């Protein structure tokens, strides 16, 4: 079929590249909305149960490893910076810089996952994994006052902890896979200043997963923490 020269990435059902880019962006934002609704169900469960069992939630939260959580938070924030820099590199046509930032993003994502792995192992060792091995004897430290809590309710906290951080980690794994594929395609020269939409849209996905963690961290790790 004869037609005028265009970017090889332009698909034929679109009138022009701008329409394709606008469609892809809108599609990605809509997908992000679905992800927010997806996690929203778990945030809803968290809201309901934290209101009902505050002391147990606080006690459980105080047992989480705040240092690992904080390091992970900063790892993710830095990884979002590298994503932005990757997009800028793509826009400027700097192929090697783009690949570099994509790879660094993946490495930071993997760092997050490794630290998470250490955290989960610590939970296992402290018998804070819900199920038959669960055993919680800690109290809620309310400004020095030690309030005992119902261990069953604490188990509910940890159930939500594992469900929410587990689902988040799954999305991180997907993100790492996605960015690895992007890095390979970028190395092969698929992205030019005229077409780098996949980098932008994948960047949006990564920022979403980051923002979800930004909510998870204070809600899970920082309940009633005092200096």
């Amino acid at each position, binding site marked *: 079929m004869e037609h005028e020269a265009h970017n090889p990435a332009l698909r*034929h059902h679109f009138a022009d590249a701008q329409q394709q880019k606008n*469609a892809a962006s809108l599609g990605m934002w*809509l997908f992000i909305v679905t992800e927010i609704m997806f996690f*929203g169900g778990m945030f809803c*469960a968290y809201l309901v*149960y934290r209101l009902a069992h505050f002391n147990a939630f606080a006690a459980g939260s105080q047992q989480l490893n705040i240092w690992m959580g904080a390091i992970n938070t900063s790892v993710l924030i830095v990884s979002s910076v590298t994503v932005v820099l990757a997009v800028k590199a793509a826009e400027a046509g700097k192929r090697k810089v783009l690949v570099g930032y994509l790879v660094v993003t993946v490495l930071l994502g993997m760092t997050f996952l490794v630290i998470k792995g250490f955290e989960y192992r610590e939970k296992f060792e402290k018998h804070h994994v819900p199920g038959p091995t669960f055993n919680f004897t800690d109290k809620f430290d309310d400004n020095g006052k030690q309030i005992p809590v119902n261990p069953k309710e604490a188990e509910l906290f940890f*159930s939500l902890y594992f469900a929410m951080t587990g689902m988040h980690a799954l999305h991180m794994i997907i993100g790492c896979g996605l960015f690895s594929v992007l890095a390979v395609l970028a190395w092969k020269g698929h992205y030019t200043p005229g077409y780098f939409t996949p980098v932008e849209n994948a960047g949006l996905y990564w920022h979403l997963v980051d923002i979800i963690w930004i909510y998870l961290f204070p809600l899970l790790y920082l309940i009633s923490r005092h200096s």
Partner: protein
Amino acid sequence: MASTVIPVNQAPSQKLNYLNNGHSLKSWLLTTDHKRIAILYLISVTAFFFLGGFFAMLIRLELLTPQGDLMQADTYNKVFTMHGLIMVFFFLIPVVPAVLGNFLVPLMIGAKDLAFPRINLLSWYLYVTGGILITHVMLTGGVDTGWTFYSPFSTEYTNTKIVEAGLAAFIAGFSSIFTGLNFIVTIHRMRAPGLTWSRLPLFIWANYATSLIMILGTPVIAITIVLVAVERLFHLGIFDPRLGGDPLLFQHLFWFYSHPAVYIMILPSMGVISELITCFSRKRIFGYKFIALSSIAIAVLGFLVWAHHMFVAGISLYAAMIFSFLTFFIGVPSAVKVFNWTATLYKGSISYATPMLYAFGFIGLFTMGGLTGLFLATLGIDVHVTDTYFVVAHFHYVMVGGVLMGYLGGMHFWWPKMTGRMYPEAWAKLSALLVFVGFNLTFFPQFILGYVGMPRRYWQYPPEFQALNVLSTAGASILAAGYLLPMIYFVWSLRYGKIADANPWHAAGLEWKTTSPPPTFNFDETPVVTWEAYNYDEIPPWERRAPVAR
């Protein structure tokens, strides 16, 4: 009005079109053409409809007699669960958007395809994968929780394949999400030049509103399924009261999607009705803006009424009152549509081809279903009839009398566009009559049964209820005949049906300005739209009467 030149010297079905553009299996299974994907959906959705119908037949056979004599109680639980799961997730939710929507949305807006054709194909494969999984569940013991799989029965006490069935629904849900996403982007970004939002056919508005619900609501059932699976598999007790969890949280999360889901089912069908009523009364729609905005209103309000499924579950009376009020309120935009359709008929030039018969059926039956919904929204009545056959009758009136009749009307209306052939009108009219009579005979007695106290999901009942149950089963057999006939004559028409031209109904709408069947890229040149929707008053007088299909 601007129109695309259609060659008149070739029989339309011999020209290169989307159906004969490639004959190999691979050209169908790896297609990205939205029209071919619609046909793929048509075949798979129809298969699941008959599978769900098979389970309905088993239910009605058991209920012929008051004793539980055809099957054991546990088996009956599995039968009605499979009926519900298959009909809800694999028929009602996808049918109109995935079959008619996929086919028509790009055509009606003058586009070459949907925004993301490969994701469209992925949607179909996800649907089929979910379908294979649910079939496997069915063949290896089924699920017995009811399609609503409430905790703690589903999370703890049942021994059936909840996780696998949940996975099937989860995957089918992503099919739904991607379809909705595709439609929204397409409608926003790919309308033909001159086609402003206020010139869009109401079928497009309906699918747009539906797509909003799909992308906002479906993820919530997805996470609910995940939490149930996680509770079953890893003993993470989210809904477990022994851990301070609340089984009611399950119900809230479940119904937060499952109520809007019923609007996913009905809105596209309502869109079909707008197209049929205008064509077969040769008039512009009365109150275009009201019908368009009522679709959006239903989509928004639909998210605010979910707890009307939980009036007797243990929610607070004040919450129940609020949800009751909101449920009444959502009847208003639906009624607005019915009034506007009726006003469209007024002083119209009405003809009675099969699609119009289904449209009339829809208006009457949906009104009955909707009104009985208001009875259920009334707290005092609901306490009496909840979990009885009254509820079953209500939702079958809106789902079958509403969604399915709209779908059948649309299939008959757009069949010539999709296949280039007309269906046999006399047989079609007979089928429509059988469907209408069979439907009412099946489900009207169930209103009475429910009111006098027959519970739903029971495999036996007191002997005094038998007469009404026998009527219901008799109606179901007539209804089955009404559904089987179109299967036969539609297939027959593919070979022997009268060849249809581009616009056999002389209907307005861009889809009628291209050949029947359309070429793969829909239009020979992109149309430029300078007219409002349903401009039947601009059609020349000699074309004013809709031809009755022969």
